[in-house]
């Protein structure tokens, strides 16, 4: 059976929205992009609604209502993908090619290779190293921070594969991260635990979410802002617990300061 043109187009809009949300676009941009797409293809009676976990689209065309809603579960910030999707959206709006071509180009973007695991591990390590130096750590602190950064990446990947929730993942990651310098200090190394932990915690702190919450709120997406604010608070709480547990234990039982 031949799929109807409007439905086919609706599917494309949904997939576009899904990938935009998943690569870290603001909700404002997602709704704006889909609206522009629909206008470009001549649909005027439309409704677009998006929050980080769901997109609902409706097109009314020749007295028919075409509706589609999708649930979005995981998202990981991928800024290169976001840039390419944005460019594709502009190009499609300008040239309005047929939908199969659009789908092919979308698939090309989403199947583009990511950085390898090795690069990702190294990047986590170097973020921790240079933020430790940034906050005033010594060279020895920086070397240990590299290990802490690797620990964060290791915990995140392993737990991510097991499909655990965001709270538990962050508790475990920060616990493992804080244990590295604590253990080494217990073994007698003269290091600054605070500098190392602050350096490595930058990998986990939801700084991007904090700024996005306000940006969403200003754009009038209160539902999005609230759900992200909850995420920020949960992650912050998880980090505090994850660092407090090993540090408190080390102070009480081992006498490490």
């Amino acid at each position: 059976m031949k799929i109807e043109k409007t439905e086919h187009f609706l599917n494309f809009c949904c997939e576009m929205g899904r990938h935009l949300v998943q690569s870290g676009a603001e909700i404002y941009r997602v709704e704006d992009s889909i609206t522009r797409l629909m206008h470009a293809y001549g649909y005027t009676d439309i409704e677009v609604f998006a929050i980080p976990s769901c997109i609902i689209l409706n097109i009314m065309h020749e007295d028919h209502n075409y509706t589609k809603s999708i649930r979005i579960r995981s998202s990981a910030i991928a800024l290169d993908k976001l840039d390419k999707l944005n460019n594709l959206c502009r190009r499609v709006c300008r040239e309005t090619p047929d939908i199969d071509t659009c789908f092919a180009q979308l698939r090309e973007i989403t199947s583009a290779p990511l950085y390898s695991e090795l690069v990702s591990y190294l990047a986590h390590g170097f973020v921790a190293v240079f933020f430790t130096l940034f906050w005033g750590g010594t060279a020895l602190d920086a070397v240990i921070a590299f290990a802490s950064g690797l620990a964060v990446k290791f915990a995140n990947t392993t737990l991510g594969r097991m499909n655990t929730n965001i709270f538990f993942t962050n508790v475990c990651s920060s616990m493992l991260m804080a244990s590295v310098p604590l253990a080494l200090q217990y073994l007698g190394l003269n290091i600054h635990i605070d500098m190392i932990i602050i350096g490595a915690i930058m990998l986990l702190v939801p700084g991007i979410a904090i700024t996005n919450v306000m940006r969403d709120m200003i754009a009038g997406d209160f539902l999005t802002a609230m759900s992200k604010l909850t995420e920020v608070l949960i992650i912050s709480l998880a980090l505090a617990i994850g660092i407090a547990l090993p540090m408190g234990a080390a102070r009480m039982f081992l006498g490490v300061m």
Partner: protein
Amino acid sequence: MLRFLPCLYAFIACASFCYIFQVRKPRFIFLCSLNGAISWLVYLLTDFLPVEAARYFLATIAVSALAEILARALKAPATIFLVIGIIPLVPGGGLYYTMDYLISGDFAMFTAKGLQTAAAAGAIAAGASMVTSLVRMLTWRKQAHAQS
């Protein structure tokens, strides 16, 4: 000169973050990292201000404005430059020391540090949203002109 060394560290740390957040174009990686270094430079240069939150506020305004300019110039979403550039300002240290005072049971310092951290986070959020709303206001007027 040593005072500005953290800017260099911020530059390299932001460049590493580009690899975590999957920025692939070399030009983007450079500009994102530069944005991060500039954010800390503004923070350092405004040390004559008595309130720390005000310094965070100004630094965020500088980063957001730069991000919007770069976005217009390179026809890319401003989020890319903002997300990376703002990272050095994120109060990770504040969060740590707040929690540190909590475990040591020093509640006076815990409250003080906690509020200071919250103020910094608030200043960053306020700065970013100020620039965004201003830019949206201006671009909306441009679009309205184009249509009429």
